């Protein structure tokens, strides 16, 4: 019996390792490429570790303002849209959790319904609207779009957590004469910090990773976001620039992977399982 479990465990490890190689290897290959001198990249040798590692490609990226400008744009848009989204979602999430009127069904229906529609349907009129407001080619316009883009998830997540805050705490504050907004921002919000943290990370990562809206809305080279700049890199002008592209991609991946690492706790704590069951 014991040898049978031993063999079973061994096979499990073997299976898991195969999965890990498939899932992680492409990124490892790109990281290795980013440290290989150009000649070595095209030498046709198959080796995981670079023979003569160099930081050339990272230097190229540094000297080429473009990538850094676009990274800055992505940061600004990501941070602004995250702050706005969480700030306006807080009272909304509170209202969804604490009241039950017909608005609950309307809003929750929209949160789920908004997932069905392909972005192209929203994108076309949104483009026309933003153009008429002179908000295409504008970081403000893109920020607004990302706020709305992140809201469904942030609202959904926060409203689930507001429900776990005991009502008596609020009652006590109300007796002391606190107003509704004071209760929301001074009493409830601090108790929601873990959920707010997760929402912040989620909103930032989704803005940082977003491509389609930015591709359509931003044409000015100085206002491109990182994802659009990288996608341009793969086009005509990026031919035979495998090394710098790898270096830039590694830099672009770092924030996503690090923030995602923090988010993972919430993913594994059954948040998604709960969403499926509902």
């Amino acid at each position, binding site marked *: 019996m014991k040898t049978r479990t031993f063999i079973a465990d061994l096979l499990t490890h073997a299976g898991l390792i195969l999965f890990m190689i498939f899932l992680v290897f492409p990124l490892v290959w790109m990281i290795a490429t980013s440290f290989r001198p150009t000649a070595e990249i095209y030498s046709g040798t198959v080796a995981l570790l670079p023979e003569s590692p160099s930081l050339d490609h990272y230097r190229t990226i540094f000297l080429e303002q473009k990538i850094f400008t676009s990274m800055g744009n992505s940061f600004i848009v990501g941070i602004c849209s995250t702050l706005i989204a969480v700030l306006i979602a807080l009272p*909304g999430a509170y*209202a969804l959790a604490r009241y039950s*009127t017909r608005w609950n069904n309307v809003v929750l229906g929209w949160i789920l319904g908004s997932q069905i529609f*392909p972005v192209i349907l*929203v994108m076309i009129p949104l483009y026309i609207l933003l153009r008429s407001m002179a908000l295409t080619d504008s970081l403000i316009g893109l920020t607004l779009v990302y706020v709305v883009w992140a809201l469904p998830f942030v609202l959904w997540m926060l409203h689930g957590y507001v429900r776990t805050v005991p009502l008596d705490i609020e009652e006590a504050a109300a007796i002391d004469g606190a107003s509704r907004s004071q209760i929301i921002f001074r009493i409830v919000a601090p108790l929601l910090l873990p959920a707010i943290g997760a929402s912040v990370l989620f909103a930032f990562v989704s803005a940082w990773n977003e491509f389609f809206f930015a591709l359509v809305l931003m044409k000015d080279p100085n206002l491109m976001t990182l994802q659009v700049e990288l996608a341009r890199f793969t086009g005509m002008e990026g031919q035979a620039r495998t090394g710098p592209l790898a270096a830039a991609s590694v830099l672009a991946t770092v924030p996503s992977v690090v923030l*995602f690492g923090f988010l993972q706790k919430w993913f594994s704590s059954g948040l998604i399982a709960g969403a499926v069951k509902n």
Partner: protein
Amino acid sequence: MSDWGRTRTSTGQLKLLLPALIPVLLFSLIPLIRGIYLGFTDYRLGDPIQFNGLANYVRMLSDVFFWKSFQVGFVWTLVVTFAQVALGLGLALLLNRKVRFTSIYATLMLVPWAMPPIIRGIVWRQVYDPDAGILNGVLIQAGIIHQQINWLSSFEYVIPAVIVAGVWGEIPKAAVFVLAGLQSIPKDLYEAVRIDGAGRWKEFVHITLPMLTPVLAAVVSLSFMWNFNTFGIVWVLTQGGPGGLTRLPMLAAYEEAFRYGYVGYAAAIGNVMVLVISLVLFSYLRVQLREQKQ
């Protein structure tokens, strides 16, 4: 003050919801409704909007590019969805055996999911690169092929190549969902069968699979929805080429609208996509309802 939880009107609630609702209304809901309407017009950027009924859909019937795009869209969506759920299920089952280092495996597997879709495309471009890519390097060194293959511009290989990249990026999501489902199956169910002396396979067929059906149905329909709407990774890998072979519906709609300016027609393609997705969701809800009745 004891009715703190009750004296709450819908206007009071609306006031709190308003800061979130206004941007949603302006930048999501109204554009969406206008977008659906534009699908019934002949609108081109800059021109006046004119209602033209079903003319866009009649045009689609004889539009070779539309049919090609939806054809590859279905192949892509069905294969990626099936493969990601099957592999995700396999991975989740392995993780659920809780051997040593499981938490390390569970973290590592998230890597593709954590990467921006554009980078997922770039990573695979570098794997498939004809000169510098690892795939050609390994195949040539192993003597399997003798000439470099340009995977992403070959009519023969481009669809499988793109699908492998797509599946790779979607496995973690499926595995996380299924794992959560596995962990919510009550342990005593297994103990009961084990007393009856059932083997692992019977356990899987008679308990795991039936208990997992609702989760699997949810994962399949959500993945179908997401995969049918894919844009970024394929855009970076092939831009829809070669010869429109990987022009998924979203790429087709994007090009119609923002490359050729046929905005009305692009919106009409979007409407057909909504129709397809609604049909899938409808059948999912039917599965759910049947489950609940039992």
